[in-house]
């Protein structure tokens, strides 16, 4: 129960931080937004589902961009403000505090993703014909959950480094490329496929696209099986999203224990 209270309190604290300076939403969303606009302009001569493919990918990038930046900077900001030691010495384990923040960040990530979708629909007149609205929402929420878990995993690594901001900037494009947000991962070289498949967003965007009505030929399952699957794959995608999220959380729990101990041993936690 005290753990849940710590998580709820840190969720509220993160919400207040966000509401005190909502302009910070811009750095989180600008790259996905601009890239989606660029892709839509590149697709000008292409019509039909390819446009929706790009827009959904942009929404996914919006969610990921927010998770990455927020998890990187939530630790880094504590360092700048000189409050990180105070956070670490409270009786609650750091993972519960970070988890509360990460859940808030993932929620804002969904808002980011939806914002990219809405702007693309309004500005470019992209038709949003969703084949299965229920599964579309379920896929969106499951992906949000997996991104929160991935954010938790990254946060554990960011505790140890005073250069979380640099790592955050450096990880943005690699994940966009590896997760195949805007193109099928079959285009990537074979050695990169295991890396792509280890990312929950890869499966999440696959599920979102199928729920939107895309045929399986460009799906990740075509890469896995070597041929287009005959039946729907959305439940399998979501199972992979859930499985990977559980793995991320398990690894994050272990890493947070190691990192907390290491931070106390070296005494360098507050170095900016």
């Amino acid at each position: 129960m005290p753990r849940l209270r710590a998580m709820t309190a840190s969720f509220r604290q993160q919400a207040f931080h966000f509401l005190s300076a909502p302009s910070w939403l811009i750095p989180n969303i600008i790259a996905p937004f601009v890239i989606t606009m660029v892709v839509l302009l590149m697709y000008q001569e292409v019509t039909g589902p390819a446009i929706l493919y790009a827009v959904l990918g942009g929404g996914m990038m919006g969610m990921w961009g927010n998770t990455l930046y927020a998890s990187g900077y939530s630790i880094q900001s504590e360092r700048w403000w000189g409050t990180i030691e105070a956070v670490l010495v409270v009786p609650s384990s750091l993972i519960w505090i970070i988890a509360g923040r990460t859940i808030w960040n993932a929620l804002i990530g969904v808002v980011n993703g939806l914002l990219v979708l809405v702007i693309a629909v309004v500005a470019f007149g992209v038709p949003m014909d969703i084949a299965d609205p229920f599964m579309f929402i379920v896929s969106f929420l499951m992906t949000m959950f997996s991104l929160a878990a991935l954010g938790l995993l990254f946060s554990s690594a960011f505790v140890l480094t005073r250069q979380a901001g640099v790592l955050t900037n450096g990880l943005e494009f690699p994940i966009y490329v590896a997760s195949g947000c805007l193109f099928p991962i079959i285009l990537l070289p074979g050695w990169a496929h295991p890396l792509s498949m280890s990312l929950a967003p890869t499966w999440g965007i696959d599920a979102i696209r199928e729920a939107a009505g895309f045929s399986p030929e460009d799906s990740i399952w075509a890469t896995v099986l070597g041929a287009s699957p005959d039946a729907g794959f959305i439940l399998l995608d979501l199972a992979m999203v859930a499985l990977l999220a559980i793995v991320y959380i398990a690894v994050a729990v272990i890493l947070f224990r190691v990192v907390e101990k290491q931070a106390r041993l070296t005494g360098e936690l507050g170095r900016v």
Partner: protein
Amino acid sequence: MQFSRVFWSSAVIAKKALFSWLNPSLWLMQLFTMSLFQIAMFWYIAQYVNPGQSLDYIIVGNAMQSIAYVAVFAVTNITGEEKESGTLPAVLVTPANRFAMFVGKAMFQVLNSMATVAVAFFYAIVVFGLDFSSVDLLTLAVVIAVTCFATVGFGLMLSSMGFYLRTTMVLANIFLFMGLLFCGVNFPVSDLPEFLQPISYAIPMTYGTDAARMAVEGASLTDPAIMSLLGSELLVAAVAVLIGYAIMLAFERLARRKGTLEMF
């Protein structure tokens, strides 16, 4: 004499400050990965959208645009970082020439930008198969050097707003990626809606990417088109630096009057 001393010492201190904060191995990681993944992203997208078409346009555009991380993002944050470190008032109470000081601080980023583009072109040729057979190397080198100086100048204009804004990070992020949309990196500027095109021509990078494409196709420095592009790029950058300097002086006065110099 004092101008050049302030300029040089600011440049040296900025370089020392960067590496006292940033681990050199991380700096190298940034240098060698940023451009690779940016080019890869748009290379794959273009392959998916228009399979079979030449991708050289996109490769050169993104190789040039990769300097934005350094020349726009890092330079824009110069004043913001002074503010967050609590050193801005100390810097501003000195009698040193403001122009020499802030331009000097940005100079290391010009070298950093050149290294970034060099690495990006290496990937462009080796990894992405850019056709480099007709290139005029001297012209390309001059185009890269001019674009790096011009883009850093543009970054300085954005940085001057840090005297007034609570943070420059938001501005830096906006302009870091805006180049992808406005500067003819992935599609010609003429593909943009007409009312947006003037923005493209107010950013030096637009001229730099076009000039670099021409150099890769073999145009020489004496080509009137190249000379015109480089001239326009330098002119836009000079105007940006002058506007930035005027903004800096105005915002410094305003911040002193309102007592907001340290607010972030």
